[in-house]
């Protein structure tokens, strides 16, 4: 009768009510950072109607790093972000998140769910909804259509939103419509939306554009406090701002990496002076 017992045991094990069947578990692939590198960009090329926006670009970003990308207009900074976040398909090259996750085979929502958050150049928030709901929508939960019909916010999630509201200094504005916020506040809200989703990698496009000096300083502090726990890549034109936050700077020029190093190294690099800083000075 042992085989009957076995069958019974298997059935019991299968029908256990305190467990979810593996096939029903959401598969959340782990980011493998054994080699300390979270983002591998290799041999990336993108061209638009013959114009090479990215030309055999190689970039490695370490886990927990705060990296600044600088470069003149048209150097390919935004295109690079588009490729990493799945908006643009490159002609050649590879992009890996950790050692195993190929980002090129995934679409924007999937990449976002893996833990890559992106802030646009123009602050993009949901104007018609309150600050709180903007953050609620950014929570990392089941984002499927059917799940969203009955979804409700858990105490932990609400705590997390409160925490982020404090971090970005918008606690007093939580029930205001996002559309009524100032430009700087919208920028912070958008950063807050990324924080709520607990990304591994944050891509931030020109965070201080249109901000006052004071707001810029606060943003710099905010970004610095994020590095370590998250990996942060900042694209910025404002050299003062870059100097104040950057540990490592990557200079892009005509779609490929021109120089990489600390701010001082980069500023003293002959090529960089020639093509970028030199022409501006």
């Amino acid at each position, binding site marked *: 009768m042992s085989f009957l017992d076995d069958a019974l045991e298997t059935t019991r094990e299968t029908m256990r009510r305190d467990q979810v069947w593996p096939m029903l578990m959401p598969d959340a692939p782990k980011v493998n950072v054994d080699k300390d590198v979270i983002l591998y960009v290799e041999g990336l090329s993108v061209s638009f109607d013959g114009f090479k926006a990215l030309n055999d670009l190689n970039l490695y970003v370490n886990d927990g790093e705060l990296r600044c990308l600088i470069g003149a207009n048209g150097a390919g900074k935004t295109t690079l972000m588009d490729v990493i976040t799945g908006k643009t398909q490159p002609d050649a090259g590879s992009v890996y998140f950790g050692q195993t996750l190929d980002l090129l085979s995934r679409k924007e929502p999937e990449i*976002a769910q893996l833990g890559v958050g992106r802030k646009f150049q123009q602050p993009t928030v949901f104007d018609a909804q309150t600050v709180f709901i903007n953050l609620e929508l950014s929570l990392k939960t089941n984002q499927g*259509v059917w799940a969203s019909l009955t979804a409700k916010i858990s105490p932990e999630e609400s705590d997390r939103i409160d925490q982020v509201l404090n971090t970005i200094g918008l606690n007093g504005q939580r029930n205001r419509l996002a559309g*009524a916020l100032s430009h700087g506040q919208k920028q912070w809200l958008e950063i807050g939306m990324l924080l709520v989703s607990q990304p591994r990698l944050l891509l931030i496009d020109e965070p201080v554009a249109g901000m006052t000096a004071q707001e810029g300083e606060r943003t710099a502090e905010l970004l610095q406090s994020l590095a370590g726990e998250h990996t942060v890549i900042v694209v910025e034109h404002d050299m003062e701002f870059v100097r104040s936050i950057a540990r490592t700077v990557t200079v892009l020029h005509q779609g490929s990496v021109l120089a990489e190093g600390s701010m001082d190294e980069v500023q003293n690099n002959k090529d960089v002076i020639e093509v970028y800083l030199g022409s501006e000075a």
Partner: protein
Amino acid sequence: MSNLINTFTRYRLPVKTSSMFVIVLFSATLLASMANLWVPVDSALHVSTYTITLLGKYLCLAMLAMAVDVVWGYCGILSLGHGAFFALGGYGMGMYLMRQIGDRGVYSNPLLPDFMVFLDWGELPWYWLGMDNFGFAMLMALAVPGLLAFVFGWLAFRSKVTGVYLSIMTQALTYALMLAFFRNEMGFGGNNGLTDFKEILGFNLQADSTRVSLFIVSAIMLAIGYVTSRFIMNSRMGRVVLAIRDGEPRSRFLGYRSERYKVWLFVYSALLAAVAGALYVPQVGIINPGEFSPLNSIEVVVWVAVGGRGTLYGAVIGALLVNYAKSRFSVLMPEGWIFALGALFVWVTLFLPKGIVGWVQDRFSPEVEEQTTEPNEDRGADTAPTNKELAS
């Protein structure tokens, strides 16, 4: 009782926001029905059966307007082809009613509808089989438009077709269907459509009681549609839908598959339109390819714009007002209506961009303008108790 209310609140069931609408709708329906059935004909309070049928028709059109509001007002998908789903639902009902005629048709053929006998068809086409069963016919009246909306939406939204291009495609969809249904070979009665209905579920369609029942059923379906739509819009799905309307790229980079949300919302909206169409046909007594005409679909958009987008009840109000005006105006100046409608649209766009509902809100509660300018004024109030709950 308080338990029940708690349950409702927990699942964000739209009790407060919907009750007003449902109460007004049901009171009006009941009063009109009683005034028709029990008030003597010579009394000043008597409501004629003609009026009841007209009101029932308006309610169906209001439901169609609500369907358009669901996709346009909340998700920014301007569909100029919703008449297609309405008409397909109507054809489903029409086929059932046609089969109910039986041998009472002009040619007394127990199986074939008159137009098929006239066209010398030997047997019933396969897609007419089973349509004499009410349940099956209603299933088809919903499934066919729903499936069409799914396939259309899946193709369009997955390819990220938006804005005016999408509107033109919806227009083309309904136009193509109109041309197809005009053909006699399609087997839907060609340009005459389906008409001369006798009875529904065994009840004589000309009887006052049947007319009043259809009117009441229309009101009930409108109420159910309203509460369901309100539930969707108050859930997180509704918020995601608004987020997609206001910033689709942002929502995608937050991890939402916007195309799936749009497809399902579009299908839901098409189903609402189909129900409206299926209820419309027994009340007006005919369905023909004219219902697919692009002009009809554009009219619906005007109703929604007049009433006010993104409020649901605004669409209902707009549909009722414009259709009432249409009924009155068409009597006075039949050929002038189309110009009046055009002028109305231009006027509303210029002077009442938020429609009648938006205008009333701005006018009578100016201090909360910031809240009411947006379609989702109940959002803030929604989150407040959640936070209080957590604090306690």
